[in-house]
């Protein structure tokens, strides 16, 4: 009952596709063109398939598993946040020609929504935005920026901004600093819509992290079954078995938490999304860190994949709020 047959099929198709083309330079074109992955949850009127967040979650788990280096996560999470409010942009996103992302964090206050310095003022029927945003995911490749500013959520074309791209420790998901200097924008939602957009990114990072965690756990299990020491496979050592079991428990718990959050009622999402982000990213961090340890020396080398999973997990754990910050958010929203 966990996943429908169609969902399982989507997962299999995508996994096979990413196994084949995940490192292809044209992977973004293929994913959006051949598979229509960004069209998944977009309404059929705008060229999408009309699926739900549950299907997007499966896609994110798979792109996480493959450590996909393409702007999939911010594009689909932003599209889901905008919906009808950005009807003009949805066909482009569905077609894969528009890369979208969300600009939230600011220097010094990170993702705290109660401390935004970016302003939007009305000007001649439109809006003008001023401010600086940091850690914008795939920001330098984006065509369209959804911007959280004082007063709500705004759409700004990327060419109206000044962007500085940064490589990252994990090397698969660059970030940008974006400067808005009276950039023209369209208001597409109020403060609640802005918070909802952030929640959807938390949820997307959570779903992706489940894929990261599960792939790393499976690679670790495979290593333990293959590698011998003292004449027997590492998988026969009880101390390692029990540690792997504890990791598996974390991965199952994270899977359940993300599964629920992807299906949560809209009024539950403000709690379920940050909660899922904490649980899934902590699980991914624990699994990928232990994966290096359990791989021994080889897991510490550049050529082995273990560190790539570890670095993605580390980045996801911090993006859009670290666990301490998000526990506070969950507590506040839950009335504790």
């Amino acid at each position, binding site marked *: 009952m*966990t996943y429908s047959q169609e969902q399982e099929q989507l997962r299999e198709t995508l996994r096979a596709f990413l196994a084949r083309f995940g490192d292809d330079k044209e992977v973004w074109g293929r994913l959006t063109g051949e598979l229509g992955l960004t069209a998944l949850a977009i309404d059929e009127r705008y060229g999408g398939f009309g699926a739900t967040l549950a299907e997007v979650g499966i896609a994110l788990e798979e792109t996480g598993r493959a450590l996909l280096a393409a702007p999939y996560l911010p594009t689909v999470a932003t599209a889901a946040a905008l919906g009808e409010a950005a009807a003009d942009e949805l066909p482009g996103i569905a077609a894969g020609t528009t890369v979208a992302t969300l600009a939230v964090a600011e220097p010094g206050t990170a993702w705290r929504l109660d401390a935004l310095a970016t302003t939007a003022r009305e000007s001649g029927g439109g809006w003008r935005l001023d401010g600086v945003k940091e850690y914008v995911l795939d920001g330098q490749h984006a065509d369209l920026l959804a911007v959280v500013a004082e007063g709500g959520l705004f759409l700004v074309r990327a060419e109206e901004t000044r962007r500085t791209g940064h490589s990252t420790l994990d090397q698969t998901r660059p970030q940008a600093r974006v400067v808005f200097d009276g950039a023209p924008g369209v208001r597409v939602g109020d403060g609640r819509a802005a918070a909802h957009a952030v929640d959807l990114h938390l949820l997307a990072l959570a779903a992706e992290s489940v894929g990261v965690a599960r792939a790393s756990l499976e690679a670790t299990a495979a290593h333990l079954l293959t590698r011998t020491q003292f004449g027997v496979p590492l998988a026969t050592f009880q101390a390692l*078995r029990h540690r792997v079991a504890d990791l598996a428990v974390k991965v199952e718990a994270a899977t*359940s938490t993300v599964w629920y959050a992807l299906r949560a009622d809209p009024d539950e999402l403000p709690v379920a999304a940050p909660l899922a982000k904490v649980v899934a990213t902590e699980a991914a961090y624990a699994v990928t860190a232990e994966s290096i340890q359990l791989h021994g020396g080889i897991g510490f080398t550049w050529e082995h994949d273990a560190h790539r999973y570890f670095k993605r997990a580390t980045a996801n754990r911090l993006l859009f709020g670290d666990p301490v910050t998000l526990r*506070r958010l969950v507590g506040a929203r839950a009335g504790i």
Partner: protein
Amino acid sequence: MDGDLAAFRAEVRDWLAAHLTGEFAPLVGAGGPGREHELTELRVAWERELGAAGWIGLGWPVADGGRGADIARQVVFFEEYARAGGPGRLSHIGEYLLAPTLVAYGTPEQRRRFLPPIARAQELWCQGYSEPEAGSDLASVRTTAVRDGDTWRITGQKVWTSLAHIAQWCFVLARTDPSASRHRGLSYLLVPMDQPGIEVRPIVQLTGTSEFNEVFFDGAVTAAANIVGAPGDGWRVAIGTLGFERGVATLGQQVGFARELDAVIAAARADGRLADPVHYDRLVDAWIGLRVLRYHALRTLGESAGANASVAKLLWANWHQRLGELAVDEPGAMLAEGEPYALSDAQRLFLFTRADTIYGGSNEIQRGIVADALLGKVGRR
């Protein structure tokens, strides 16, 4: 369908409002882990009240004395039971351990004989697996059962048997073929508790109270027909029981957990710890942990059990133990008041949860099962 579910929810709610009152009013919030000794007689009566109304075995087929409710309805029942503050349950061992065993391995006669009294709470059950020297190693059971005419005659000792002092029946794992090695030669017997050959002695725990028992079998008898599976099949049947899907019951258990968590948070608010960011972080983490238990139960509802059951056990046992630690994380928590060793709720929670990671399959056993699923079995290393 949703409309039906809403109607069902209303039915449960109305029933509870009408019945968990009057003589049963003292039960609101009572019982649960670490408090099994509370109000036992009244809780037995309450189980019969639930049984008479068809709330036990809700999901069983009608032919077995149940109501054939789907999982969604079972969940609704537990949710509403929680909201009403229903007391900790006593019939769960029969309902969730024995009954599925009989459905999987029992004869039609056994199902007819034993399931209806479970559903009406006329017969409560206890589990006779653990032995003093065996620990979690079921295959080393020493209790013997010898065929004697139309009966099995049982001799030996079981331990950590909860509810043995109120149960009418016990399912017992006993060695029927002493020549067979380890897990071969065991049988799964259904044994009536009210007979001269059985003595129940409470085990005094670190709480100073007694929740578990030792059960001594000294030539206790049961009818030859009261064997589940063939003689020598006991290990397979017992291991089957361990693996039964407990998701719905787990949602019931979480009722008590939520009540305890609320109390711990309320106490922390009252004594100022909640305002301290370090304690706040830990308490919210516990709150999150309970949501995770719930989400995990919901996701795996109806899935085949196996390693999932072990994952769920590890999750709740560790979570609950941690909650116990948070409950007493203030200096006054160490004081004992009133009569000698009368424990506060927080102290009881703290002390009793040390057992959560030991009984019902210890953390070590559960990790072994989870590892087997991921890495294959490798004997005992």
